């Protein structure tokens, strides 16, 4: 198990946003996290990455307890996420953005006496990642000038550059128009086999194409975890999404 | 000895109440619109000069000039909001800071042109001058007036926010603007009205301040620092917060200058930095 959460609980006052969530992610996993709006999916991701501290429970990465570790340290240990809403560097080019991530990873970002151009390997690695995602042609334009779908891909590029063991994708296809989502599908399909991936998605096409297991989150708690087909047939899931009396 | 402490507390409280009236508008608009309006102090200055003008040129009684000071500042703020501020809501903190500081400079220059650089004294009605003696301690009548007026304003604010529908709309918009908009609240109108009310209160505060701290073209910039301290210490968007912050600052300033005059405002600034480090969102701030 590369990632494990044990009974994660979180409430804001009387509002319970996470109830006793325990999941396990094996290496190479392709798990989907689904649930109605407000179920607490993004909150759960925030809890795993350390943006939020749980009230109780533990989070273990590769067997090590990271419940008290900061977000940046978790990334350094291999736990990375992408954001549902693009959280990019608008004025930097994708090349610069990804190079920054690589430099931070190699702990070379603080070397203010070395010119950026001297970090050849970082720049080339960054270019390679962007090329794999089909962004080579726009890699040197400011990120804000890219199409929305391309920006979503930069979001993933930033995450991949950290060389994660566990990758949490928060609705990677959110807001991407249909004609741009093909590239996105390809990218998700070709993610390195050894990375454990947990992705939040509303787009059922992606869920059924890529997920080997689906976790259904409702009102902060895990309703069930099963294969996509089992989840599709489960009456409780139907009820949650469609309401009672909708057969 | 006790008498001195009481007087210091009393004077400090009066000064604090004045600061509250000056600042409450800014904390609401900051919490509501996230717009750093450093020209807020200039609205205070405007209110002060309106009072001076009405009293000296037109012989109006002091009390009657107060609502006019409120109205004048509110009206000018509406115009400024429509013409300028609206375009800066997304412009970033630095731009908002610099634009509104530029506005203060222009206002100060305007005041210098029309009124000169000197202090503007006014003559209060006789019942506000002098003092009242209680238990052997003399309390200034004007300061009592100030405290009473501020408490009335606080009560009105509290009532409006907590008991009226409009108040509920303001609270909703401060709490979560996007959801409020989604629920159908005309957020733009709420902004405009709240901004006008807040600036009007600043104008009123400026008029009330003449007797305590004087009025000259540098008022806008000078009191800006005090107002900012009240708002940051109290917490953006929190009226009880700015009440608390104003009281603390008022008493702290008066007490500090009384006990350790050589240090001047040093203790105030130290308190500001210390509080912000422990609670960056202010004593009663959200988030």
């Amino acid at each position, binding site marked *: 198990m590369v990632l494990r959460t044990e009974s994660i609980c979180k409430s804001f006052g009387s509002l319970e946003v996470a109830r006793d969530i325990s999941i396990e992610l094996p290496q190479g996993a392709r798990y989907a996290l689904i649930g109605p709006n407000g179920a607490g999916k993004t909150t759960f991701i925030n809890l795993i990455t350390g943006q939020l501290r749980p009230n109780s429970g533990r989070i273990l990465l590769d067997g090590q307890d990271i419940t008290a570790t900061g*977000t*940046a*340290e978790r*990334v350094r240990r291999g736990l990375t*996420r992408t*954001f549902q809403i693009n*959280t*990019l*560097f*608008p*004025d*930097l080019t994708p090349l*610069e953005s990804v*190079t*920054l991530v690589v430099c*931070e990873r190699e702990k070379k*970002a*603080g*070397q*203010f*006496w070395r*010119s*950026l*151009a001297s970090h050849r390997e*970082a*720049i080339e690695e960054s270019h390679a990642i962007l090329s794999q995602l089909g962004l080579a*042609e726009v*890699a*040197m334009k400011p990120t804000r000038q890219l199409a929305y779908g391309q920006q979503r891909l930069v979001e993933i590029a*930033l995450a991949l550059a*950290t060389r994660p063991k566990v990758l949490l994708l928060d609705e990677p296809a959110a807001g991407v128009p249909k004609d741009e989502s093909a590239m996105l599908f390809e990218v998700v399909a070709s993610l390195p086999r050894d990375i454990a991936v947990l992705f939040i998605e509303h787009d059922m096409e992606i869920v059924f194409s890529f997920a080997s297991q689906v976790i259904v989150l409702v009102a902060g708690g895990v309703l069930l975890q099963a294969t996509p087909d089992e989840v599709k047939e489960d009456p409780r899931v139907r009820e949650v999404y469609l309401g009672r009396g909708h057969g | 000895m006790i008498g001195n402490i009481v007087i210091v507390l009393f004077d400090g409280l009066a000064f604090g109440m004045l600061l509250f009236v000056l600042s409450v508008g800014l904390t609401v608009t900051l919490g509501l619109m996230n717009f*750093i309006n450093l020209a807020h102090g200039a609205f205070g200055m405007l209110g002060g000069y309106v009072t001076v003008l009405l009293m000296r040129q037109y012989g109006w009684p002091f009390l009657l000039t107060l609502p006019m000071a409120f109205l004048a500042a509110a009206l000018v703020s509406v115009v400024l909001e429509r013409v*300028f501020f609206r*375009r800066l809501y997304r*412009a970033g*903190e*630095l731009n908002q*800071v*610099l*634009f509104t500081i*530029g*506005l203060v*400079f*222009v*206002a100060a*220059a305007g005041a210098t042109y029309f009124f000169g650089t000197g202090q503007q004294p006014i003559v209060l009605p006789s019942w506000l001058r002098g003092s009242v003696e209680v238990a052997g301690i003399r309390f200034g009548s004007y300061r009592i007036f100030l405290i009473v007026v501020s408490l009335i304003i606080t009560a009105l604010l509290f009532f409006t926010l907590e008991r009226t529908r409009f108040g509920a709309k303001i609270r909703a918009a401060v709490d979560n603007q996007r959801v409020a908009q989604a629920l159908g609240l005309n957020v733009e109108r709420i902004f405009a009205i709240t901004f006008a009310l807040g600036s009007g209160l600043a104008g009123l505060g400026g008029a009330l301040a003449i007797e305590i701290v004087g009025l000259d073209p540098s008022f806008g910039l000078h009191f800006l*620092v005090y107002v900012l*301290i009240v708002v*940051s210490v109290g917490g*953006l968007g929190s009226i009880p917060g700015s009440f608390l912050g104003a009281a603390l600052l008022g008493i702290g300033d008066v007490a500090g200058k009384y006990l350790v005059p050589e*240090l*001047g*405002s*040093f203790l105030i600034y*130290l308190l*500001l*930095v210390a509080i*912000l480090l422990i609670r*960056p969102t*202010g004593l009663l701030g959200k988030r």
Partner: protein
Amino acid sequence: MLQSQVSTPAMQPVAWIRRRNRWTIFEVLFWLATLLPFCFFPAYLNLASQIAITALFALSVDLVLGYAGIVTLGHAMFFGLGAFTVGILSSRYGWGEPISGLFLAALVAGLAGFASSFLIVRVQHLALIMVTLGLGLLTFELGNALSWLTGGTDGLTGISTWNIFGYFRFDLWGYTAYSYSLIVLFLCFLLCRVIVNSSFGLALRGIRENVKRMPAIGSDYRWHLRVVYTISAAIAGVAGALLTQTTNTVTLEVLSFQRSADVVVMLILGGTGRLYGAIVGAVIFLIARDQLAGINPQYWFLWIGLLLMFVVMFMPKGILGGLARLVRREE
């Protein structure tokens, strides 16, 4: 133009980055132009050296404001610390050697910067502005209170700066003063240029662009902020020291809010995040002030206020930003 006709960029990524950081002809011309006052405005050399000193101060603020995105209204704190370090060294301890004075000023201001940086990284937005403002005001009040050390409102007397390297005397016309200030400005500029063109500079821009993303890429951004704040404070201290050394006076004004606010205005004028914007902004601001205050000192505020409002509304990227946009539009 040429680039847009090529569909795939033929340029290698490393070369592209290197090209962005290369010295352009404009930069070379700019620095050559700084030598003009020697030939064409010899009567204004003292003013020129003041401009160079203020430009250096503005440069230090650009590092934190333009590159790291920290809005500071209290940077005069470090400028003043540097100025007073040299002033006290000379007036109290009789030490007037200029180069060592600069290093000591940088050290004192840098230490203060390092200490404050721990406070700075804990706050954001308005609270950050207020903390910088508060710290600046605090230092001013402290300077006022410690009048036995700082000379209070009258300032320090008895300051004399020795000859540079024991040879170059500070002459009345300002030849030495301007050469000295210009060389220090240039050297510090080189340092700033190296910093902003490094991976560290990239990290700073990342912080400015989206601080929320920084921990998510594994960045210890608070440490980066502490480093840049310290370096910026040290450079500001050097600028302050230069002021004392070239004028042989120092008063509390060096710690004033006015100075902190002026330098931010210069940056918005010239354009933040460009290094040259700081210098251009300082030149324009000081020359404008010199001219306008001469015409009518009372309404100096009016013009600066209007200028600020105009620049923010119509040229938020400052003069250099506006120029850059013009150049890009022609391509």
